[in-house]
């Protein structure tokens, strides 16, 4: 069943340029979506827990899908992933690892920590666009999301 509501995306990425790239992409998608971005793991966790400024549901809606980079300052991606997947409240969230690391150990660790998907950022921008386009198609159009767990 296709959801009529816009898909809420949270991007956790420390590189502002990359974040900007993704923002523009998701904006250009036909499927309605709300794109939010945090720069580090600490912010990501606060966002999910509706802490501080993130208590504002309108500006910072609880996401359906999280795009998570692994290399983050303060609290790294793995910690964020573990936090999400061990929490009864956030476990249901679709977490897509989006990182430039193709290292086996990172991939293993991500999946062991119950990442829903793992995507590697390609160097070639066309490829990158391709990935992101498909990303959009799959995750926005077809994937069905669970409703948020009540607080």
């Amino acid at each position: 069943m296709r959801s009529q509501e816009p898909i809420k995306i949270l991007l956790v990425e420390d590189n502002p340029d990359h974040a900007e790239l993704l923002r523009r992409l998701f904006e250009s998608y036909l499927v309605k979506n709300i794109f939010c971005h945090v720069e580090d793991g600490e912010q990501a966790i606060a966002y999910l827990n509706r802490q501080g400024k993130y208590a504002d549901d309108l500006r910072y809606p609880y996401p359906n899908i999280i795009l998570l980079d692994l290399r983050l300052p303060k609290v790294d991606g793995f910690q964020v992933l573990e936090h999400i997947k061990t929490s009864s409240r956030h476990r249901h969230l679709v977490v897509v690892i989006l990182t430039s690391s193709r290292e086996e150990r990172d991939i293993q660790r991500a999946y062991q920590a119950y990442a829903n998907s793992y995507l590697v950022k390609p160097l070639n921008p066309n490829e990158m666009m391709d990935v992101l386009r498909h990303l959009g198609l799959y995750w926005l159009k077809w994937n069905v999301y669970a409703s948020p767990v009540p607080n």
Partner: protein
Amino acid sequence: MTENKQLSSSESLRQQALARLSDSAVSLSELSHEQILKLAHELQVHQIELELQNEELKSTTAELERAQLLFSTIFNRSPTGYLLLDEQGIVQEANLTFCNLIKSSLDQVLGKPVQTFIDDADRPAFLSRYRALFRQPKDKLIELRLKHPQKGFIWVRLQAERLSPPKVNEHEPQTEWLLLAVVDLTAQKAAEQALRLSEQRYRNLIENSRDLVYRISFVPQQHFEYVSPSATAITGYTPEEHYADPYLGYKLIHPEDLPLLQKIATEGIKPDQKLVLRWRRKDGRLIWMEQQNTPIFDAQGNLIALEGFAQDVTERKEAELALQNLLQEYDVLFNGVQDAVFLIEVDEAGEFRYLRTNLAHQKKTGISLEMIQGKTPIELVGEELGSVLCANYQRCLDSGQPVTYEETLDLPGGRRTWSTTLTPVWREGRIKYIVGAATDITEQKAALETIHLSKQRYRTLFANMVEGFALNEMIWDDNGQPIDYRFLEVNPAFEKLTGLKAEQVIGKTARQLVPRLEAHWIERYGEVAAGGGEQVFEEYTQELGKWYEVRAFCPKPGYFAAVFIDVTQRKRLEAEREQLIQDLQRKNAELGQFTYTVSHDLKSPLITILGFLAFVEQSLDQGDLAQAKADLQRIRFAAEKMQALLEGLLELSRIGRVANAPSCFPIGEVVMEAVQLLFGNIQHQGRTVDFEIAPGLPLVYGDRARLLQVMQNLLDNALKYMGEQPNPRIEIGWRDAPDEIHLFVRDNGIGIEAEQQEKIFGLFEKLDPRAQGYGVGLALVKRIIEVHGGRVWVESEGEGKGSTFWFSLPKTHQT
């Protein structure tokens, strides 16, 4: 013949003749002249004849007289008494012997009836038989008693014979006389009595003898003529049973022994031949009997009887058998023993003579019994060897004690080495014998020699081997737990390796020598000594400050031997190697991390560049120049970042590759320089920073330019992470350390969380992504200090608590 009767004298003869003539009827007148002449002639002739006859008669008479005298003498001297009795029993004649026999004189005897002389007891019998005797005296022997004045009576034997004496004249009727030969049986009777007594005695002897005496008669059929009463005691069968069963004798004999008897029977019995057979008694018990049989033959030489006696020789036989067995045992023993045994007799002169040797002796020496028996040692083997042997025997003799010695002898049996023991034996107050027993130890000696050589070799090995060796006895407590061990033996290498001398060590326990010996040594050795199997291990002992590789094994339960080498050096090298490997691995990891980081951090701007280029193209197509410009700026920054990164990398690599000549200089100078350079920055920021620089900063040895870079970066960092506080303060100081100098740069800035403290020296690590710089500075510091042989680290109590960055520089001989 009575002596009274004599030849008539011529006187009486004439008278007799005249008498007869007168009786005769014939007269002389009637005869013719011729007849008278004839008669006269015949008369003359007759006269001559008569004269002749008379002479003849005279000689005959003389002869007769002589003969009569002779016969009278004989008659009277005959040992046999003679009586001449008539039919009525009157004694007509008797000889002197008879008279002497009854101590009577002849005239007392003659003309008396014979019964006068017969003893009263026998008289009736004689009288009743006399007639029959007279009629038929042949073969009749009468024994009776005659009266004797002194003895009462004497026994005589009468043998009668009819005599018809010549008639005196023809007119007489023929008288029949009985000639009685009277033999004095006194002696005979006495002899008979003695014999009877003797027989009785012998009978008693036999009857009472414990031996079995018997006589088997074969005529008419085999039967027991006599079996002594002892048969009952010996065989269990009474003599009567023997008489009843003629073959009982055979039945008694053990079936296995019968053949022996049969052999005798066929070969013929030899008198005095003793036969020893087994008999089975009536009660079933087996006994040994020794028989001696004497065959009795009749006049024709036929065997008619067997006389014998038999003794119960069971005891003797058993003793014999026992002796035989004993002898056999002794023989077996003597000759079965492997040692050479010999018996020497010491004669009174002190000479030694060989009496006997056993089989082993004969075999081993090659000298037979015949060769050795009775000889002295010198006679046997010659002067040289013999005197040596004698000397040994003499030693035994002199000491009176057993002596043992070894000797090597060349004998017919070969050259062998012996361990000989001589034992003196006393008899009759002196040492009469010497018993020698010699064990052939040739092989043993050879083996011992081999062992000795072997030992020698091992001794040499022991003394010269490079590895330390210790033989120890384990000591256990009451619960069977190992608590200590005692040194029994150590080799020179042990001394060298441990620095402990053998004299110090042997007999002492480990805990005595090394009181703080680690327990693991004792536990391990305990396991080995208890039979837990060989252990090879490496262990460190703090007391001696050494590492040993030990091989411990158990030669005997409760003991262990340890062979060990000092591997301290090796351990050190190993540790170094480990360190090197770890370093390399670390460096490798770092490199890997580095590569990863580099590639990632370089990729990142590239993604930005390429990504935004696409958007720029899009913007140009759409005519959105503003957006395009903004995006191009992003692209530029990204490219610059890449450039900076690459330069940083280059710098880092240069530090390793290009080195300036190191020198000795006071670090204080470098600090001042760095602070000066920093002032520009501080002023630029418009801030005031407190600087505190410790006095007496030491001399250091290193690359001045690089160390300046270190100070600069550290100060830069401190400045960067000052935070928003009002009184920023930077402190620079140092402390002394063994072999190193430690220097620090302390700030009271934002501090670093524990988790981040490790990361910050990493390349491109930035705690605050927004901060200036590319995260190269600290990495550079780390690199430079490490090249100097030092280390970097940071101390911080956490966020807001400031940080202290430390680095160390090794001391050299100059500093």
